[in-house]
Each structure stands twice: as structure tokens, then as C-alpha cells.
């Protein structure tokens, strides 16, 4: 498949507007401006585009809700708070191909009737901030942003807001809180952001990758777009692969490419021919899979059928040299650190899980610890305010589900069976 989102990124000047145009950029926007906003939303619906942030929510549905709300002004937010461990799929777009995002946002803004957009950028992406700001300035200069886009009187203004490094701000309502200047904590839903979002106005929050699909989608039309990859959730998808493969990196492939193919075909197989032990297919919050479960199409519809989720498409590959108790412990350290503290189960439970895992990892586990872990995780799962706590609980549950003997051995022997 020809790359769409990461087109031209080998070109060192790919972030420049002229290079982007030379490679065929800024074609979707003029076409979109020739359409009615409603027609754009219909195209997106026909295309079957789903949000690439992790939940896979149908984009056209979200847009329809927001555009149906009579309140004005409306806002379009780009969620560029790419913080899920293992995930670096948006980063190449932000750093190498920013204009595809800007063009996508201008199209989306027009479709939604939103005149203002913000890119909520991850605090740890300072490079992307400079690239984006330069690209936005260029887009203003050439009339792709501003008060009269394409000479058609369409207004869309765009600004970058850099986060302060909180994972929770990837959750859309926490992102909105943070953007408004408050502490990043999720809000009560409903009302949903499409009705009461930033500054209490209708707001659409879409992921970087999602929005970057728009220029191409409009250019070729929804019908043609829907033919790419999985019929249930079509389009190109960026998979970012890390860990023990020969060629870790970013791969733009048709949605639904098999996990097995990604590892053994695109990434050149396991590093140094070692044996695969476990794969986390979609970022740390998605359930870990053992080697015998990896023959599954990587998309939003099929992954749940195979016991995991597509998530952000961040594939973390681990070979036999990895202690999974340690990975689980490290993951919980992350969740504990990133828990916002709003709700009880997540605030208290993630820390408790981490403490128990720490004991096991350090050879101080006792009989009953595994049951305790499962019980505590069970008390978190489904009881938290937002999915962060669910993620933490399901990591523990799935690691134990697939690799229980390793935990038992840690407790029994007081040491690691992999690293001694």
C-alpha cells in the first residue's frame, strides 16, 4: 500500500509547506471547501472512519452530534497528547508531516462549523511544538488558515497548546479541563464534549492520526477510502512497534494487518532469532497476548474477539529474556504515577497494586498475593471514573491470566525465573 499519512517523510524537508504541496498536499482542503459541510460529514460516514486514539469511535457520529448543537462558537481540538506507553505513531506526523494534520483540521473545522482549533500537544514533544508552530505560520501565510481560507470566506484559526506532561490529559474531558487552565482531571459525562466541551461550547476532540486521514479521504472520496484495509474499520493505520524485533519502528499499513505479519513480516521477525514470549498489541493498557494468540487482524473490531484491543496500535514485543512480573510492576508504577487522584479506586488501588507487585518482584511476595492482586484489580475494574483505572486493573488481570506460573515462581522462590 502506498503510504498516505507518512508520505514523503524520508524527505528531510517534509515538514515544509512547499514540499508537502509538491508531494500532493493541500488538495483535499480546496475540494472540501467546494462541498457543503453536511456532504463532508456524509463522506466521512461513507468512509467508515473510526477514531485512531484508541477507542475507535465512529468519527462521523461524533461530528454529527457536535454540528447538530446550535451553540456557537464550536471548537475542534486535536488530541496530540500521545502518552500511552509504547506509542509513537502520532509523533512522525507531528514532526515530519504537520501539514497533513493542519489540512485535516481545516477540513474538519469547516465540516463542523468550528472556527477555532487547538492542538493539545504532549508536554514531552518540544520538537513537535516548534515544527507545528512553523507549519501553522506557513499555512496562515498561504491562506490555508485564517479568516478567508481558499478565498471562500471560511474561517479557521489554529493554535498549539502544550500540556504539562500528564497522561490523563489524553482523556478528552481532562484534556479540555487542562486546556481551560484547570488541573487535568476528567469531567462528568454527560454532558459530552460534543455539547458542552471547552469553554462550555460544543467541542470535537479527535486524534492526530484521525484528523490526518481527512485530506486523503476527501481527495479520493469516502467510497474509495472504505475499500482500504478492514471492511469494518477501513483506512490506513500507523502501527508503532517496539521491543525485541529486528526492525522496530513506525509502519503505515492497511487497517487489519495481522499482528503476526507485523512482527514477522514487516518488522523482520524476532531479534536475533530469539523466542517470542509476549506481545502487548495496542499500548500498555491493552491486554497482553501470549505467542499462540497473535494471529489476529489488528483493527478495532477483530482484536476484542482475540482477547485484546487495538488501542493506539502500539505493539510492544517481548522475548524470553523479559521478566513479565517486572513488566507488570513497571506498568503499574506508571499507572500509579499518572492516576489523577479524582476517584477512590484508581487513586488508592493503583498504588496498592504497585506495592504488592513490588513485593513480589523483589522476592518478598507471600502466599495469597496473587489472589489479593486479582481481588484488588477486580475492585478497580469498572468502578473508576475514567478508563485509566480499568487499564491498570486489566494489565494485572491479563498478565496473571497468561503468565501466572511466573508470578507463582517469584513468590515461591523469592526470585525471578528469568533473570535469577
Amino acid at each position, binding site marked *: 500500500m502506498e503510504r498516505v499519512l507518512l508520505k514523503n517523510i524520508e524527505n528531510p524537508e517534509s515538514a515544509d509547506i512547499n514540499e508537502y504541496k509538491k508531494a500532493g498536499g493541500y488538495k483535499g482542503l480546496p475540494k472540501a471547501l467546494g462541498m457543503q459541510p453536511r456532504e463532508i460529514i456524509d463522506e466521512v460516514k461513507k468512509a467508515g472512519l473510526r477514531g485512531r486514539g484508541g477507542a475507535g469511535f465512529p468519527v462521523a457520529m461524533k461530528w454529527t452530534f457536535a454540528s447538530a448543537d446550535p451553540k456557537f462558537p464550536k471548537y475542534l481540538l486535536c488530541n496530540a497528547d500521545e502518552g500511552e506507553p509504547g506509542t509513537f505513531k502520532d509523533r512522525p506526523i507531528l514532526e515530519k508531516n504537520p501539514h497533513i494534520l493542519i489540512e485535516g483540521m481545516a477540513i474538519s473545522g469547516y465540516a463542523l462549523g468550528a472556527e477555532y482549533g487547538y492542538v493539545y500537544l504532549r508536554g514531552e514533544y518540544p520538537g513537535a511544538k516548534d515544527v507545528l508552530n512553523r507549519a501553522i505560520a506557513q499555512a496562515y501565510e498561504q491562506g490555508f488558515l485564517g479568516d478567508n481560507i481558499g478565498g471562500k470566506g471560511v474561517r479557521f484559526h489554529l493554535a498549539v497548546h502544550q500540556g504539562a506532561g*500528564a497522561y490523563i490529559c489524553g482523556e478528552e474531558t481532562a484534556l479540555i479541563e487542562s486546556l481551560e487552565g484547570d488541573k487535568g482531571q476528567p469531567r*462528568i459525562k454527560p454532558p459530552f464534549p460534543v455539547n458542552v466541551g471547552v469553554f462550555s461550547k460544543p467541542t470535537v476532540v479527535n486524534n492526530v492520526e484521525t484528523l490526518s486521514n481527512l485530506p486523503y479521504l476527501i481527495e479520493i472520496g469516502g467510497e474509495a477510502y472504505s475499500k482500504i484495509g478492514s471492511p469494518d474499520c477501513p483506512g490506513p493505520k500507523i502501527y508503532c512497534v517496539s521491543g525485541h524485533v529486528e526492525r522496530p519502528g513506525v509502519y503505515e499499513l492497511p487497517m487489519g494487518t495481522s499482528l503476526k505479519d507485523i512482527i514477522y513480516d514487516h518488522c523482520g521477525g524476532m531479534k536475533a532469532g530469539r523466542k517470542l514470549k509476549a506481545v502487548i498489541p495496542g499500548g500498555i493498557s491493552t491486554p497482553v497476548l501470549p505467542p499462540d494468540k497473535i494471529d489476529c487482524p489488528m483493527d478495532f473490531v477483530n482484536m476484542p474477539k482475540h482477547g485484546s484491543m487495538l488501542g493506539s496500535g502500539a505493539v510492544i514485543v517481548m522475548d524470553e529474556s523479559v521478566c513479565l512480573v517486572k513488566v507488570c510492576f513497571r506498568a503499574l508504577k506508571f499507572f500509579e504515577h499518572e492516576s489523577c487522584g479524582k476517584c*477512590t479506586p484508581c487513586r488508592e488501588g493503583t498504588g496498592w497494586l504497585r506495592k504488592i507487585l513490588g*513485593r513480589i518482584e523483589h522476592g518478598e511476595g507471600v502466599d495469597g498475593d496473587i489472589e489479593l492482586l486479582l481481588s484488588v484489580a477486580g475492585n478497580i475494574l469498572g468502578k473508576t471514573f475514567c478508563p485509566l483505572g480499568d487499564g491498570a486493573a486489566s494489565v494485572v488481570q491479563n498478565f496473571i491470566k497468561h503468565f501466572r506460573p511466573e508470578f507463582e515462581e517469584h513468590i515461591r522462590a523469592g526470585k525471578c525465573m528469568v533473570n535469577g
Partner: protein
Amino acid sequence: MITVTINGKEIKLEKAVTVLEAARSAGIKIPTLCWHEQLEKYGGCRLCLVEVEKMPRLQTACTLMVADGMIIRTETDTIAEVRRGVLEFLLINHPLDCPYCDKAGECELQDLVEKYGLTKGRFREQKRKVPEALEDPVLVRNMERCIVCTRCVRMCEGVQGASAISVINRGGHSHIEPFSGGRFDCEYCGNCVSVCPVGAIMSRLHRHSYRPWQLGSETKTVCPYCGVGCTVVVQVRDDIIKRVVPKLGTVVNNGLLCSRGRFGYEFVGNKERLTTPLIRKNGLLEPSTWEEAIRLIASRLSEIKDKHGSNAIAGIASPRCTNEDNYVFQKFMRVAVGTNNIDSTARTGFAGAQGFIENIFGQGATGNIISGLANSDAVFVIGGDPTTINPILGLQIRACSRRGGNILTVGHMKGLRYYTPLELRPSVNTEIALLEGIVSALMKKKGPPGSHPVLEARLKDLNAQEADLPRICGIQGKDFSRFIDTLAEAATPSFVIGKDMIQSKGGSYGLFLVSAINYIVNGRIYLLSERANEQGLLDMGCAPDLFPGYRPITYPEFRKRYENAWKTGLPDKPGLTIFEMMEAAKAGALKCIYVMGENPVFNLPHTKDVEAGLKNLSFLVVQDIFLTETAKMADVVLPALSWAEKDGTFTNMERRIQLVKKAVHREGMEDWKILSEISSNMGVRMNYSDAEEIFGEICRVSPLHRDLNYEEIEKGDAIYPYKGEPLRGSTDEIHIEKSAGREERGKLYLRVERPLFHSGTLSRKAPALVNICPEAVARISPATAAALSLKDGDIVRASSKTGALELPVAVDEAIDDSAVMLSNNFQGKGAFSLMEYEIDPVTKAPCLDSNQIILEKVNR
């Protein structure tokens, strides 16, 4: 109609509410921690999770709105399990120090664990350790106990509007901290203490001195501080007040209090309270007996009356005493002494202003419901910061702003600074010109409403030019236009008037102008009142020209009515106002003043003059709970019972009559009892057995109180006229004396600060309030500080025509460049000692805004 089924019970609802509210309405209890009826929804604690059919996840009952046909279960095995789990999470880091924690016994977490929780802990690790924060004199924070429900933060931000505390850090490190660090830099309302479900934020006043179940007696009564009249519950152990707390659902303050109300009660148990009568012998006040003191007073009063006539005697009543005390006081003065020389410190503003406004709009015009402010679409504030003078009323103004109303102020109101979209800050002593400008502009914009020809006739000549305002008042044209537009567009505006307006030169004319604005835009007026029973004292006839129920003494038919009621002849000439009393005393015409519960030496301007007058008397009686500056000059001092030690009623600024109830016992007599003893000794028998009997008489005598009794008052909504005669309408004549202050550029003018934490005599005997705000400071603007090379804490000598004080300065951005603010709250450092005054010819209130003051740095 929405129908939902909760635990098999069908519930019909008029409108969509939360599942929690729906369940409560049907008597189904769902446990909660972060939820609180006064606060914004949060959904954080997760205790109220319930099962809803067709919803895959459990839902928080406190956030989920009901929908027609919803089927909800709140008590299932799964839910019991969830609650146990949540409580276990809360307990893993919560210390099990219940035996030591003051909250034990009324701790919501303790109660819930007892009901739903596990019996055995599974947490094997170290609990979080956080030392107790004891840096603050009044509030103690114990963050080990904090369950991060954020009720305190939501209270502070969303209801109190102080925004002084916040959740600091994230996740398991979350805790509550004042922005200022260890010590609170806040309004000390203590409403965070009220809502904390555990022992994380508590009051230090009664620390470790009781267990909640030992607070044997609880008395619902009225706060003794300001004219709002908040309902408070006084909790007592062993006859000592341990706590004063608000109560949810009460009509005036619904679960909220201010610093004075909550932390100011300690004056009651103060060791400096007077215990026995004192009689001056050989120049010294010596302890004596009640018999001796009462006999002495009765004989000296009779003697003076015989020798110099009844009008050589005057009485000063008390806005801190009950209606019953004040009623008996004026009756004593009118019947036993035979004079109308009765007045009070209400004369310093409230009395005259209320009379003036009522004359224009009819009686009761200033008695509007306080909570109504929150529903106004615009609130115009002038003459003082309501958030410090009447804090609970101030909260209603903040609530108005939060609901989208516009707050318009003339002058800078610090407590409203985050809520004031429109502020006009005229240069010193030019308010009158600005008000004239506003009236003219509104008349042009809206035209005369046509319903009050007398008032409109008075507006005819008024033609202030907007173009002159920048030059005269320093107001910019565009600010003025926005102000006028907002005011003109308001549909339900309210006007809040403070004392500074009344006490300025041309105050009565200013009141007329504000009344005119109010008339043009069809608003309601609120008159701020600094004392708990300022309204009631006037209702009771403690005024030189009015009988109880505001009946003018000069109308023979009214006088007849009271003569019949009291079975005696009554003086027909109006008596002296409090300021005239001081003049007459200085001149020697007045021989005796009887002071009940007031401290004129401190609470009237021009201290030296007041002292001179009182010194010149041949007999001064002071009846009080402390040996005040005035009591120290007295010939006889009588110890009275305080607010907490007697029954009676207060009437708040809304005209709401509320019961004051005895909460603690103390040897001694109520003010009314002392007066009736003296009266009986003078041959005019008064033998009331209790306050209720006096109130019975009041209701027979005052046409406003007819048919009222304690039982009716207890029910809550006793606002007069209860079933009595309608209030008087407006009159045909409005008396105006045009006058305005003058500004000498470059001079500093003394202004009275009315601080949140003090109220004068009582508050300085309450250690908690003194700890919060321990000393008098002169507040100056940064520009003044720069001009005089002063910085925070520098000692200055502040001198005026009438005296000089040495005190530290505080640089405060809220102060006007031409003003020096000084409170009148600290012994020996009161602003009034530096002020002289002239009397407004119409309201008879003192004009205090022309006092120039010089600051000089004192080098030590």
C-alpha cells in the same frame, strides 16, 4: 412525568433529577462521601455506584440523571461488594486513629465502614504518613485522614467563593492545601470544616476537649454578630460552648457561616466577663451587691428627675440586645423616667437611612429577602463591601455573579473583586457627582417610570452631563456607558447600600440619588446592617421619635394608644439623638445617661468629645458584659447576661423575627430583668416572668407584630407585618439637602475599614478572631506607600485634628490613593478616635468622610 423503579419501588418524578435525589425522595438511602447537597456534583468517591438495567457499567447515583423507565438497584450483593471495596481503598491510607480523632462519632467514613466495610485489613504495606499541619491558629489540617473527596475545595471555590484551597499534587499524593502554604490566607468562614466528612480539616478552638456524643445540649439560635441573623446551633459540654455550627436547610444561611459566627463565640466564656455590679466609690469602681446597685440607681435617677426633670436623663439602647430587652428599655425610659431621650448607635447610619428610604418607598422597603440577591440579574453595590460587613449576604451576591448576574459597584469592593465585571471608582469625595450622572443618564435612557410623582418632581432639575464625569470623578466614558447599559437592561436589579455611603458628606442626598436609580430601574434595596438586632431595636421604639412599631410619638392618636397600653401619660416631645445626647452632656443640660449593652466611647466618632460629654455627667450607668471603655467611666456598672445565656428574639435586616435561646447557664440577670428591677424600685412596677411574656406585650402594643408568638416564630417564617396592619406607604414629601464632599488633591482621607474578622467590642474578646486578625493596621495604597517611602509593617504616626495613633501600615492594592483605611476594632487604636463629624441634616447620621489624616514614619 418520569417514572423510575428503584429496588422494585416505582417512583414518579416531576422533573429529571439524579438517581440519588430520586432515591432520597423515596426514602431509599444510598451511601455517599463526595456528594454534598450544597456542592457541585463530583462523582469521585464511587460509593454511590448502583446497577442500572441496560447499562453495562455500574453508575454513580450522584451524577446519573434519571430517565423514564429506568430500572435501578441500589442494594445487591455486587453493590455491597463494591462498597466494601471502595471503603477498603479509602482505609488503606487512612489512619485508624479514631480513638484520638475529634471527628470520631460523627465521622461519615467511620459510620460507613461500620455499616458496609470489611472487618479485617488486607493492606500489608506502610500507610501514607503526613504530619498534622498546625501552622494555623484556627484550622488544623490532618492530611493522613483526608479522603480527597474535595468537598472542602468545592465549598471554598463554588459556594464561599474564596478559592483559598486546592488539591495539591496528583494521584495518591493528592492532598488539600491553602495556596498560601501552611497558614490559611482566607476568609476563615470554616465552611470547609462543616463539609469535611472526616477529621481532615477541623477547628482548633475546641480541639480534643469533647467527643461529639458528649455535646449534650444543642441549641438552635441566632448568631450574635451582624444583621443577617444566621441560624446557628450552639453545642455545649458542661455548660461551656464547644462549637457553633450552621444547620443545613435553614432559611437565612442554609448550612453556611462566616468567621465571626463560627469562631467568634468565645467571648461568652471569656474570663474578663463582669461578674458582680460595680459602684464607684472614692473614684474607683468597687464590687458591690445587686441590692445596693439597684437601690442606688433607682434613687439617683429619681433624684435627677426631681431636680432637673425627666429630660435630663437619656438612655442608649443596644443593637446587640434582644427585642425584649430593648422593648423594656424604651418602656423604662418613657414610663419610669418619663423621657423620649432614647437612641442607639443605629443612628450612625442604619436608622436614618432606613427612615429616609422608607419615606420614599414605604415601610419595609429595605427589608428584602437576602437569598433573593442570588436571583437578581444585577446587583448594584455602594458604600461598603458586603462580603465583610454582612458576609452571608455577600455570598448571595457572589452566587448572583456565578449565575450570570452582573455586579456593579461604585468604589472598589475587595471581596467582590473576582465577581465585579463593572466597577466605577470615583476619585475621593465625588460619589455624589457620579450618582447624579447615573441618574441623569438613566433618565435619558429609560425615561421616568411615572409611578412616583413626588420623586420625579425632585429629579426635574437634575441634568448632570456625562461628558463632565471624567474631569470630576475620573471615570472613563466607556466604563460609564457599560455601567449604565447594564443597569438599564437589568430586569430584576438589587441595590446594596453600606454605611460609607450614609456617612459621607451629602449622605442623605446620595441616598436620594441611589433611591432614584432604584426607582428608575425598578429594583429592590438592601441596607447593610452591622449589628444583630439593629432592625429589632428600631422596631421596639428605641428611637427618640418613634414608639414600638414605628408609630410617631408626635401623633396624639398613637400616643393615646400607648398611654392606654402602658396605663400612664407619655412625653410628647421627641427626644435627643445619640449625638445630641453627647452635645447636651457636654453643655451640661444632660445629667445622666443609662447605657445598655453599648460602648459609645469606642463606637461613636470623635472619642475625645464623647469622653468629655460622659465625664460631664453627674451619673452614668453602664449595663454590659465586659468592662468596656465606657463602663470604665461609669458610676455604676451592671453585669448583664450575654446572648447565649438568655431567651428572646432578634429581628434581622429582612424583618425576620427569630428566637434567641439560652444555651448556657450563668448567674445573673437579663438586661430586661435588671431594668424591671430598677423600674419597680422607682415605683413603676414591671414584673415580667420571662422574655416570652414581654414578647406577648410587644405583640399587643406594636401593630407590626400583632398575632405573633414564640410558637409561630419557631416555625421559621415570621416576617413582620405578620398578621398586623399593613406597613405605612410613602409620603408626599421628600426632604433633600443637596451637599457633597470636597476633595483637596494630594491629601489623605481617613476611611473606616469594616473588617471581616471583627465587629468591635465582642470580637476582640474572642481569641480566635484576635488570632486571625490581631492588630490594627493602617491600610494604604501602593502609591501612597511609595510617596511616603513606607513599606509593609513600617510604624507610622497617624494624626488628625482630633488625635494621633501609632500603628503599622499595610500596603494594599485595594485601597484608593487618597485613602487611609483603619478599622474601629482594636482597643486604643480605633479609627473613630481620629475622626470628627458633622451631622447630616436629614438622616442625622454623622458624616465622616472629610477627616484628613497625616502619616509620618516613626523610626525606631
